[in-house]
């Protein structure tokens, strides 16, 4: 096991120059990860369950006004503030993938992790959100359906990472670059989301992350987040 360590360090790059803000990643994530919808009143009260949200601020004044879209998801911090505060180890760092996991069946719902997340990336199951039959038929069997009272958040589609690793090991090879793709990156119509192994300096994600447009959200907090953004902007390169 020990020699295996350090082989995987999953990360993501989101290029804000080509992210259009179309929300396809949001829907893709929700459909892949059995995320419940909550309805109008709950959405209005800030209880939407989306693991991925597109933050939209406005820049400028009319007529030079434009929205700034930024997909916001769990940044899978290396030094995750959500982890140590959990009394029951429900929010832990995975040794193998080097990502931050929420172990649903261990969560007791203190919501401390959510308070301590500087990215507001965590969502809480305020109720049991049941899908009326036969809508429950589309639930993804690889992803737990969460019950009321527990915390959840983006997992980097860990079920796909696991499946990718199993496939690779079944054919006796390493996981190829681009073999594991989370639902958001898979859907993204402009390929603005690139996912891969940051511990491999040659992987596509590592290469893009070295761009001089790269920045990380709230980097000054030192959480060592694994999601890198590439600065967008009207004037870049033109």
């Amino acid at each position, binding site marked *: 096991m020990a020699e295996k360590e350090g082989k995987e360090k999953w990360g993501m790059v989101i290029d804000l120059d080509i992210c259009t803000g179309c929300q396809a990643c949001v829907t893709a994530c929700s459909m892949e990860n059995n995320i419940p919808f909550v309805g109008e009143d709950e959405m209005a009260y800030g209880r939407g369950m989306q693991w991925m949200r597109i933050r939209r601020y406005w820049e400028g004044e009319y007529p030079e006004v434009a929205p700034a879209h930024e997909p916001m998801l769990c940044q899978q911090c290396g030094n995750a503030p959500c982890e140590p505060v959990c009394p*029951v180890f429900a929010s832990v760092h995975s040794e193998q993938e080097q990502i931050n996991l929420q172990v649903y069946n261990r969560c*007791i*719902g*203190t919501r401390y992790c959510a*308070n*301590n997340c*500087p990215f507001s990336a965590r969502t809480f*199951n305020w109720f049991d959100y049941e899908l009326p039959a036969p809508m429950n038929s589309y639930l993804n069997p690889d992803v737990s359906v969460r019950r*009321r009272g*527990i915390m959840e958040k983006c997992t980097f589609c860990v079920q796909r990472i696991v499946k990718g690793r199993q496939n690779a090991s079944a054919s006796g090879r390493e996981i190829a670059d681009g073999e594991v793709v989370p639902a958001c990156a898979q859907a993204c119509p402009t390929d603005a989301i690139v996912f891969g192994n940051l511990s491999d300096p040659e992987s596509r994600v590592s290469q893009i992350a070295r761009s001089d447009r790269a920045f990380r959200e709230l980097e000054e907090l030192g959480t060592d987040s694994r999601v890198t953004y590439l600065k967008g902007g009207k004037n870049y390169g033109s």
Partner: protein
Amino acid sequence: MAVEAKPLYSSKATEHQETNAEELRKEHLMLDPMPRDEMNQMVMNAMHTTTKKYWVFLIGFGLAVVVLLFGAWGYMIANGMGVAGIRRPVFWGIFIVTFVFWIGISHAGTFVSAILRVFKAEFRRPFTRAAELMTTFGLAAGALYPLIHLGRVWVFYWMIPYPNARWLWPNFRSPLVWDFLAITTYLLSSTIYLFLPLMPDLAMARDRTTGWRHAIYKVLSLGWRGTEAEWLRLRKAIGIFAFAIIPVMFSVHTIVSWDFAVTMVVGWQSTIFGPYFIIGAILSGVSAVVTILYIIRSTMKNFDYFIRPEHFDGLGKLILIFSMAWAYFFFNEYILSWYGGEEALKQLLTLHATGPSAWVWYLMLICNVAIPWLFLWNKKIRRTPWIMFIITLLVNVGMFAERYTIIPLTLGHQRNPFDWGIYNPTIVEISIVLGTLCLFIFLYLLASRLIPLVPVWEVQEGQMSHTFRKVGKTEIPSVTELE
């Protein structure tokens, strides 16, 4: 008062009664001694007197506990935390506010009876028990909240460190586990601390009751007779406790404050939160003692003998001091945050003072600073119980507002304005909060008729050690060290 020679009382004083001494006697309980049997009778009378009104209140509050607390809580458990008003990003709401509030209240008992005991502040004697009861019941009410606010309360025991079928131990790096340990420690120790000085009084009650009460007191008093060894044992135990419980008390509220201070939340991450919370807790606790003393004094028989304006006066001075200390810490916290100029923090402070919920912030400042500073310097006001009752109630309103500002109002305005959110407590939350208040009152009502609310032996001990001493032309009270 009996005129016969009392070794510890200056006989001269009784012979040459001067107006000065008479006044002092009226003023100070310690200088107004009463024979033991009479005092016992007074306390027992107060305990046994149950008016119709009392039963109405007792049953009313009992029902309120069942409906407001357990009813609403049960509803919340059955439906999910969503029936409360918390939301993203305000994941902690009025439950944690009230939790901190009760833990703060619970500091009074320890403060009054441990710190004042250690420093031998004699005026504490008649109300240490009332304050300790407040500690225990305040903690009982407060300790419910870590359970109430859990998303899955039915597995709360996963936080407890014990060998279990899951083969998991809790995360001792989590402040919530510290919280759990600290509150357990404090709850147990403050209950013990309530119990220890109670033993001689339970024995007293045992001697004066029959039937079921007698049986209970007999068991609880552990066969107390009052031998020298027993007294020594008790004194030693209380001595150790009084010293040991003070750091525990500090640690409890420090750890509660660390729940906030260790995080990355803007406005929480602060090194001053520990002492700031402790001072706030003592301010709120001492105020609550005054509130309760007023109620006890005006509703229970014979208590105007025990609780006198001097006690309101003394506690009032303490409140003024702690209000000033609180203001100092508040200002310290504020100016450093403000001076640092971090964008999010600045925004937060501006919103506290100008946002839609700014009234909470101003309420806090008015009740915690303006009111005590304006009124409590005045001796006449300090000595008027009903005014003190109102002022102390307001101080606790202010302290509640302080916690409300610190928790939901701060959480609602973090680094990402896109995710800001305004929290509105729901009827369920308010019902649970009122429910724990009713629980506290219910327990107190019950206890007021089950255990002697005045530590008779301590009052007697105090009265024995007080005496008048002639100095020059006048007589002044003096205290003898009996122990």
